[in-house]
């Protein structure tokens, strides 16, 4: 439990120490066995070559996954919007949280090293091929394997604290007992077909029940952020799953 507590405390401390006006809900942290069989199926499931934890760190034992949920106030503001999902606050949180994720990773790497544990990882963003929009390491996939969430119809990770937030993962050569994975869908659509808000709100029509056209989404995002140093689009995060999951 000691290693698990150390990791969780570092993540919590870094999150709580972020300067105002940024504030976050409690991080959701999970651990996956680096040799989990699911990693071997990811390439086939995702459709492009995926790294194994041992590709990032030869003696990998555990994958640490941490999701930093955005504050409730931001979530409610975005959920209330019915018209145009462009918010400076969303972009600000995206940028600040990416820095937080990197800071957490750096601190984990440093402090784990002090107790003889090596850690390695991919950055939280800008880790994809800009031509075919694919990444070799999926933080979301690791999050599912680590039991902290499931994929929604919106192709986002939905955790018990919802989908609004940012994610990162780190491979370590120390052992932490894997988080139990229940596989119960957090997404209302997959649970009982009762929600398709993400699909109906997607401004570019890239998201449908059949899947997501990431090139269409990406082109829309480029246009929407064409001169505004904004990031992303919260429309597919604006449904009931924004702030909570529905597995229970």
């Amino acid at each position, binding site marked *: 439990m000691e290693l698990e507590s150390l990791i969780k405390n570092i993540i919590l401390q870094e999150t709580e120490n972020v300067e105002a006006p940024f504030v976050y809900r409690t991080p959701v942290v999970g651990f996956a066995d680096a040799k989990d069989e699911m990693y071997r199926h990811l390439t086939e499931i995702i459709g492009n070559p995926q790294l194994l934890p041992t590709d990032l760190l030869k003696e990998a034992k555990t994958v640490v996954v941490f999701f930093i949920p955005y504050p409730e106030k931001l979530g409610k503001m975005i959920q209330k919007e019915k*018209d*145009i999902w*462009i918010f400076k606050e969303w972009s600000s949180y995206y940028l600040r949280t990416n820095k937080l994720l990197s800071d957490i990773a750096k601190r984990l790497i440093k402090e784990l090293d002090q107790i003889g544990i090596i850690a390695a990882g991919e950055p939280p963003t800008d880790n994809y091929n*800009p*031509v075919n929009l694919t990444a070799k390491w999926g933080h979301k996939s690791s999050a599912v394997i680590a039991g902290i969430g499931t994929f929604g119809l919106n192709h986002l990770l939905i955790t018990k604290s919802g989908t609004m937030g940012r994610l990162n993962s780190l491979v370590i050569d120390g052992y932490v007992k894997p988080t139990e994975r229940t596989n119960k869908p957090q997404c209302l659509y997959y649970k009982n077909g009762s929600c398709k808000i993400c*699909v*109906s709100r997607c*401004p*570019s*029509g*890239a998201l*449908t029940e059949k899947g997501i056209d990431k*090139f*269409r*989404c*990406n*082109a*829309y*995002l*480029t*246009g*929407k*952020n*064409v*001169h*505004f140093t904004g990031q992303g689009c919260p429309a597919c995060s604006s449904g009931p799953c924004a702030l909570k999951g529905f597995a229970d």
Partner: protein
Amino acid sequence: MSDFINKHHGKVIEETIFWMEHEPVSAAERYRHSEYSYLILHYKDAVTELEAVAEESIMAKYSLGYCYYYGIGTMENRNKAQKLFQEFMEKMKEKAFAEEEKYRVAMCYGYGLGISADGKEALELFTSLENTHGGAAYEKAVAYQEGKWEIGKSKEKAGVFYLKAHELLYEGAILSLYEMDGRKGKEFPYYEEVKSAYSYLIGRYTLAARNQPCADAYMRLAKIYEEGFPGDDREGLDRFLEKAKKYYEKARGFAQEELP
């Protein structure tokens, strides 16, 4: 990502960064800033800036005339537009040297703006610019598509010039080609390009509607949704129609508020 989007986006970012670091002071700078406002679809701002600088900048006169002629960022006023074009042509018709100047003179000749229409003159000028100026290439495309200015209709040549205009970053060229080709969805030979261009444009219109909410901005958004996304199935088209209805409603609301 589409080459068009990469380059167009790059151009906008470059101008954005420039204007974050510079304040327009001289007439030339204020005119350039109005072009930037136009580029990012802040048409009302562009018109305000052009009104302020039109007496000092002949290019601003043309731009302002264009806005009045087509009701962009202001109420349509063709009389006012013609007067501005006339003033532009009086000064520029013999003195157009730079590419953009020649293009604008060609537009005036082509469409009878401030001068009697002269298709032959227009065509000659557009032809001289067709390999370097997106707007000129586009006008050649339209001329071939419609058989304007006695050029002889040719869909094939129109297609060549629409593609050239697209490569030269003329926004809308690939969409015009898609229309001319009969909106064949995924059978369109440049489907990936038109898909990217369409999504990019929806994004740009969305941002403009957020930044400068007004009837025009919401009308543009409504129209592009109403057109339907190239290649979408019935469900996708219906979802877009719902969005179009919503934005037409918003446009009507703004139009009521904007009534003099």
